[in-house]
């Protein structure tokens, strides 16, 4: 099977980095009856869970390249986890990595910020570039400030909410900044993460006493405080209840205007709700890559069709 090359990148002319906002608030998903038979667009039968109007349709999608993954292979010892994957990651888009368990999605994600190096016996070949520069040639800590990650299990530090978000700002600066200096940025990050309203009255509240959903949003705020260019999310909602999940999904949709988002998810419905582009990984290979509409509506590969329609998982 040959690897599909990703579609050509559309380069932005003029307003760098500013993608036009979707006019008006996104329409809430209609809880309609599942589609029986083909929908009006002439596409093939959509998956049973598909809502007729996904929130993520944009009129004029504009994106700039952030990262390129070129023929990346990752092996742990003798076991190859990722085989020769090539993808672009673009600012202004949410890229979802989907696939059954153990197919290399998380490994691929972790190689984007060089966390795979922390595992003994890991070896890579291929190239990943950030804004054209090979990340292997960069200082890993500098890379990880530009490409931050949120994990599956919320892992706020055992400090107050303020200290958690300010941690990144304090530790990355040359001299430890005063509290007043970082307060503005902390508020910003919390606002972007949608948590400010809930914790504004007491920013010194211990972080570990927040609920699971709040903790995860705190982790996202923490990751945003570093002002990253790419935000990596490793199944962020798998440990959370549906309400928190919804809040975080809304958050991700809002965030994509500021950062490039890559999210690994087990949950096809979630990918359908929030993704612009989808990469389907199967046993370490990139089986198919394309826009979310195409992948869920009319996927080209047989395996993708089977996975998306729930034949296996």
């Amino acid at each position, binding site marked *: 099977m040959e690897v599909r090359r990703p579609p050509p990148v559309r380069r932005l002319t003029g307003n760098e980095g500013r993608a036009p906002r979707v006019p008006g608030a996104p329409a809430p998903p209609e809880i309609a009856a599942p589609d029986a038979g083909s929908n009006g667009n002439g596409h093939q039968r959509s998956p049973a869970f598909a809502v007729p109007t996904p929130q993520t349709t944009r009129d004029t999608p504009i994106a700039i390249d952030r990262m390129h993954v070129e023929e990346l292979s990752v092996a742990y010892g003798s076991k*190859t986890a990722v085989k*020769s994957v090539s993808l672009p990651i673009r600012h202004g888009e949410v890229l979802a990595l989907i696939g059954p368990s153990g197919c290399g999605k998380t490994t691929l994600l972790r190689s984007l910020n060089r966390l795979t*190096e922390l595992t003994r016996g890991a*070896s*890579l*070949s291929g190239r990943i570039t950030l804004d054209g520069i090979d990340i*292997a040639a960069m*200082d890993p800590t500098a890379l990880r400030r530009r490409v931050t990650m949120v994990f599956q299990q919320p892992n706020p530090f055992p400090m107050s909410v303020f200290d958690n978000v300010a941690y990144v700002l304090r530790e990355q600066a040359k001299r430890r900044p005063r509290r007043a200096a970082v307060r503005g940025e902390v508020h910003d990050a919390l606002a972007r993460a949608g948590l400010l309203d809930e914790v504004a009255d007491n920013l010194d509240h211990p972080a570990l006493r927040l609920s699971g959903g709040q903790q995860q949003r705190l982790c996202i705020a923490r990751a945003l405080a570093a002002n990253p260019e790419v935000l990596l999310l490793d199944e962020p909602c798998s440990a959370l209840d549906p309400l928190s999940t919804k809040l975080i999904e809304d958050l991700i949709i809002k965030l994509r205007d500021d950062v490039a988002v890559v999210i690994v998810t087990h949950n096809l419905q979630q990918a359908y709700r929030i993704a612009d582009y989808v990469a389907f990984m199967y046993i370490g290979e990139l089986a198919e890559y394309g826009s979310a509409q195409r992948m869920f509506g009319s996927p080209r590969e047989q395996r993708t069709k089977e996975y998306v329609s729930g034949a296996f998982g």
Partner: protein
Amino acid sequence: MSAVTATPVRRPDRATASWRLSDRLGLGLAWLLGLLFCAIAAAIVIYFLVEGLRYLRPNLLVTNPAAAASETQTGGFLDPLLGTLIIGAMSMAIAVPVGVGIAVWLSEFGRPTGLARVAESAVEMMAGEPSIVLALFGLTLFTLPALGFLSQSTHGVVLGQSFFAAAALLSLVGLPLVVASTREGLQAIPSHVREASYAVGKTKIATTRRVLLPAARPSVITGTMLGLGRVISDTAIVLLLLGGTLTFQSANSVPLLGLLRGTGDTLTGYIYYNAPTGDGNQPSKAYAAAFVLMLFVLAINLGVDFVVSRSRKAVTWK
């Protein structure tokens, strides 16, 4: 698709160039002190190994010590060696049942809560108490006429120094370790095991005896060994409560009881005696005795490791 042979990329070294100066200093200091510690630890171990082997002769293990001026006549340390074994056995014979009892009470019963809290604090306080204080107390306690039967008396003055006295106080030294370890072992057993036992009609005490304690056996053994290690390493109580006589001085002619009521010495006391600051001043004997004592301690440490590693593999509470 054929398997891609991934050419391993050399993991780039920690690029410390971008770190702040304080970070680099910190890392450097950690490495420096770590290696320094290795060097000092190696020096200590090698030093005692070399000196001990130099002076250790098999006949030392079987000869009785004697007070004499020259090295060839001062004999070996059979009595102190036996003394260490006796005192270890006696004190743990008291500490283990008492300690397990206390641990079971704290873990399974624990009412009234006032007493439980006081007991916890008391045991913890014991753990930190200097043994010299215990020794002083013991000396006064065992010189009371009422307890004269536990040691010798001359002209109506109770000596107060005997194996019984020393073992009694040393059991207090080993007790906190047994209690802590046993309690931890009991508390690690999940509640569904207890509930399963109660559900078939067993009483709490029967459950404890038949189910919980056998399951917590590795912890009990670990606690016993740790306590034993503490006990045979103690010098202050031994010096004050055992009499420090080089050979066993039995109180009377009754074989075992006389011995235990009499005075003697242990390896720790013997080492103290033969150090340059002691009366005997035979460093060569002190080295040899130190070597043998360290072998005991090493054996106990290895025993604890063995028990812990075996227990980890054995039982899983899923």
